[in-house]
């Protein structure tokens, strides 16, 4: 009797430990996500300053310098600003992007009269202050001097400082100025790299798995290959970076920093994962189905392509997507092949120099400007979103392709 009670207690205790472990894991995950989201969410909005713009009907704007014209409009709002240093302080509240925005506005001028307040991008210092990331101490806040704060207060009193959707974050490429920096270039770079990694490693991985599992005779040689593939899956990713550097850059002389090279390197890195997943998926196809096919007079290859492969496909795809998810978040091999550069242009193809999303995160977290902190977190949010989507796809494909028997 006593032993039964003890056994039940033991089982309850063990169950409790299990719940505790799961709860700890969930708690840590929630803390991580909360930290990233609470820091990153503000990067999706950006501070803008309203400026009164006046352009008469049918003005000739072809000779206007947007920079001078915007500054003239700003100065009109503050007639007291006279000296050079006062002007400099006033203008410094605006980002360089404000002049591009104004230029765009002038490009779209259709001859109608313009008279009203239009919003232009503020500098990252003002942005940090306005979002409350940098706290005000007396008349200064972080890098904002009292001489600048004077104008900020004036704009605030006129209700001309506003948060608007940050179109630069998801719409542009990297920049030295945080308020203009975006991850679109990195998203393109990641996309090309993953596409190339998939195109190279998926067929190679499946063919390797089929050969090893179904066609190769079991001998010493196939044992050695098997052991090596299993070991390759555990090789640190930076070593694959070195391999990519040696093969694709030094030997084949492919362009440095190109997502083509990044993709090939990531493909090499993912290959063992795909081979292992595909082999176990092919192995788990019921032999009775394959026997039935052989018994009806199918050749070995016909059996593989009619039954083994389609029935193993859910498992193969799941393994592939997990491998791809690992590759999309990988930084180290990309550092080795030079995808760690500061690139302002959005790559137009896999041969162009590019960075990838995790490398962009790595670069931004290293930048001194405060405004890059929230951008780093925002980029992590986007990366997590991609990983989440990939995993959803894996689950969906598995459910859809899985057949019961």
């Amino acid at each position, binding site marked *: 009797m006593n032993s039964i009670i003890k056994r039940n207690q033991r089982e309850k205790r063990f169950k409790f430990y299990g719940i505790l472990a799961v709860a700890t894991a969930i708690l840590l995950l929630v803390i991580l996500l909360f930290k990233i989201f609470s820091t990153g969410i503000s990067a999706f909005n950006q501070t803008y300053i309203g400026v009164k713009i006046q352009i008469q009907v049918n003005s000739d704007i072809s000779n206007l310098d947007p920079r001078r014209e915007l500054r003239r409009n700003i100065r009109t709002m503050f007639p007291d600003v006279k000296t050079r240093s006062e002007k400099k302080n006033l203008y410094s509240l605006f980002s360089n992007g404000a002049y591009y925005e104004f230029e765009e506005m002038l490009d779209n001028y259709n001859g109608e009269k313009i008279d009203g307040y239009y919003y232009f991008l503020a500098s990252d210092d003002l942005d940090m202050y306005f979002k409350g990331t940098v706290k005000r101490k007396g008349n200064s806040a972080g890098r904002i001097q009292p001489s600048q704060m004077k104008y900020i207060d004036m704009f605030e009193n006129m209700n001309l400082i506003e948060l608007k959707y940050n179109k630069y974050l998801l719409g542009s490429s990297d920049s030295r100025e945080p308020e203009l920096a975006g991850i679109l270039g990195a998203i393109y770079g990641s996309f090309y790299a993953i596409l190339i990694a998939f195109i190279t490693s998926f067929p190679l991985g499946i063919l390797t798995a089929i050969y090893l599992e179904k066609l190769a005779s079991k001998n010493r040689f196939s044992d050695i290959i098997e052991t090596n593939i299993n070991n390759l899956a555990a090789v640190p990713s930076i070593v694959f970076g070195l391999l990519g550097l040696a093969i694709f850059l030094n030997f084949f002389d492919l362009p440095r920093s190109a997502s083509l090279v990044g993709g090939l390197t990531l493909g090499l890195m993912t290959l063992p994962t795909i081979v292992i997943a595909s082999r176990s998926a092919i192995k788990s196809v*019921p032999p009775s189905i394959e*026997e*039935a*096919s052989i018994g*009806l007079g199918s050749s070995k290859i016909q059996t593989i392509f009619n*039954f083994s492969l389609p029935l193993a496909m859910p498992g193969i795809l799941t393994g592939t997507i997990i491998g791809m998810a690992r590759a999309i978040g990988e930084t180290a091999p990309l550092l080795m092949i030079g995808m760690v550069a500061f690139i302002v242009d959005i790559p137009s193809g896999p041969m162009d120099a590019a960075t990838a999303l995790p490398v962009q995160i790595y670069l931004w977290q290293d930048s001194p400007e405060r405004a890059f902190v929230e951008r780093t977190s925002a980029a992590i949010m986007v990366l997590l979103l991609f990983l989440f989507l990939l995993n959803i796809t894996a689950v969906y494909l598995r459910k859809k392709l899985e057949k019961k028997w």
Partner: protein
Amino acid sequence: MTKELKISAKNLNVFYGKKQALFDINLNIYANEVTSLIGPSGCGKSTLIKCFNRMNDLVDICKYSGQIMIDGQDINHSSTDPVSLRTRIGMVFQKPNPFPKSLYDNIAYGPRLHGMFNTKEDLDEIVISSLKKAGLFNEVKDRLFESGTGLSGGQQQRLCIARALAVNPEIILMDEPCSALDPIATAKIEELIEELKEKYTIVIVTHSMQQAARVSNRTAYMHMGELIETGLTKNIFSNPKHAKTQDYITGRIG
């Protein structure tokens, strides 16, 4: 009345690696008869039946010596293609193994593979007649395009028989076809075997002596990889010549 010889094994030895599975088997199987192989587990019945359509080729470590002749042709000769050999020999397995496809596609698989039809109508005809031969058509005619895995065990096994019949084989090998089925489903399969022997040569491995007695014309008793005794079923069961056969059919071993 002399029967036409269909399969004959001469001095057949089979090895799995170093282990010998069959010892010097000499067996004749006649056309349009049911021959059953009986014997205790592990005696080599399934190994023998798999030699007839060279399924053992799939096992790397399996080696043969001796001869198997089908219609006077050595099937292990290098000029014999195992794939075309298997189209002449249908096989039904122990566990029903329909493909995870529709009933129609299950049966159409073989004919499609070997290009045995010209028009869609021909294929429909093959599918329907195979189902009719397997006695399954009336039960499934309304759901030909549903999955074959949704049928009951007995129906699945008859589907597998229909699938084997669709490629128009001469010989049907059955490896314990009823071992996973209930008595009613078993009775249906046995009836079916009775009908099929008019047109096909049937070799059946079975664990049930009653089944061997009911369905087969000839019986071969195997023990530890050796063929102990073979003869007409009625003689084997009523008057076994060998003591081991006697022991087995009276239930003392096995």
